[in-house]
């Protein structure tokens, strides 16, 4: 596994899960699963990566919701305590709008947005990994981008890149 792939996994979870610690836990799990799956499967690694990470994200979100968002009870590894800031954002970037949309809207299309526009994975890989047609993926991307735009619109959901 390359550094860029590990970065992609960590960034994906950082953006789709509601908490940093959850994202770190999911990243650990995904790397472990990918290491074992890559040996067995003959599929393209990037496709396995998208599939595995999306599945884990769904499960983690479910866990998070079932635990009534109370992460105090959750036993995270002690090693996480030493990492104060796992991901470093540019100082001008606010993820408030993103977090808000994550709370409000359907996740599946947002996953696609992260894979396609944040991590810049080829659309063909995303299509193969999501078991949808090319048209469906493009439509979902369009919808989620439009939705994100509506959240960023000044006045209504007033968050922008510099908010």
């Amino acid at each position, binding site marked *: *596994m*390359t*550094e*860029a*792939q*590990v*970065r*992609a996994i*960590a*960034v994906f979870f*950082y*953006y789709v899960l509601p908490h940093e610690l959850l994202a*770190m836990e999911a*990243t*650990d799990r995904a*790397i*472990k699963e990918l*290491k074992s799956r890559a040996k067995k499967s003959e599929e393209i690694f*990037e496709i396995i990566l998208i599939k595995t990470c999306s599945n884990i994200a769904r499960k983690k979100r479910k866990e998070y919701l079932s635990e009534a968002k109370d992460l105090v009870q959750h036993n995270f590894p002690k*090693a996480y305590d*030493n*990492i*104060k*800031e*796992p*991901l*470093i*954002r*540019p100082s*001008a*970037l606010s*993820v408030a*709008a*993103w977090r808000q949309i994550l709370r409000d809207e359907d996740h599946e299309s947002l996953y696609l*947005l992260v894979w396609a*526009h*944040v*991590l*810049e*994975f*080829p659309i063909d*890989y995303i299509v193969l990994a999501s078991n949808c047609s090319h048209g469906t993926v*493009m*439509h979902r*991307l*369009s919808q989620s*981008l*439009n939705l*994100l*735009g*509506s959240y*960023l*619109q000044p006045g209504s959901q007033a968050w*922008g*890149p510099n908010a």
Partner: protein
Amino acid sequence: MPKVHLTKFVCKELVYDYLTGSLDPSRREKFQEFLNEDLDLKKKLDRNKHALLYVGELKKIELSEAYQAYLAEAHNLGLVDQKLETPAMVHEEKAPQNNFWTDFWSERAEFLKLMRRTGEALALAAVVFLVVSNLPKELFDFKSSGKPTVLLTDKNKSSSVESPANTARVEHEEEVITDEIMDESEELVKAKSSKEEKVAKKSVDKQAQKNSSGVLSTPAKLTNSRPETAARKTVARADKDEPAKQNFYLYRSIIYVENLISVSDEFLSYLEKNGAKKAGKVKMGWEKNRSRYFHFHIDESKREEMEAVLSKYAPFRLNRYDHWRKTPDGKMRAIVEIRQKAN
């Protein structure tokens, strides 16, 4: 260039394609025409542009060194020493790593897979062999298809003395009766021994013919006299053991009644009063699938009386079948099955 017909509605759906540059030139031109006219479309385009810019900012995020070090250590990734790659390079083919053991196992992956498959096939074959070797040999005796088999169907029916047509209610029993399996296996053994005896007899006859023609010399005659006596002995023994020349019978019948429990209880108490004793392996009145099964010995004089007891409920008559099993004088062996009449 062919002209494309685009509506405003379709144009709204094409905003994403316009932004990502995946529209063909003719559609792009048409889209721009609508963009000048339609304010809503322009707003939507601006929103999407804004979102794309925001997403462009989101991708600038990086992993901290502490986290990178943690991941490398926790998963043995060796990331710190690796050259940093741009996201575009992720999808390119990576140069093979110079790890001896990784190379060693990857080169032999196919071989290992083959070995594993072979192992699985051998294990499966061993299991099948063990299962097959533990099955009874009679199941594989295909040559003796004409001979009686272990499974019993009522084959004595063909040689029945009385016609079963007399009893309208009584049907031919087609089921396999489990507790008669033992009887049948004995029959099988007997059939085998009689066959052996016949073979022995034949060999004796042949020898006698040869002896009378005088072809054999004296020592040969002496040696052949032994099998002759042995054969005679076996024939004599077979004659002794062969009671089948006498006629023995098995009486059997089935009756369908409306009230199975009361009728079968009454019949059971009648049998017990009249000194009937169970034959076969199961007790008298053994329950099986909405029927009760009676296999017993009783005085032959009770036959008509027994028929009268059951005839109260439905026409009933015991059918007599030839059977090799010896029954004492004045006694009879019978199998009666009382079944629940279907509503």
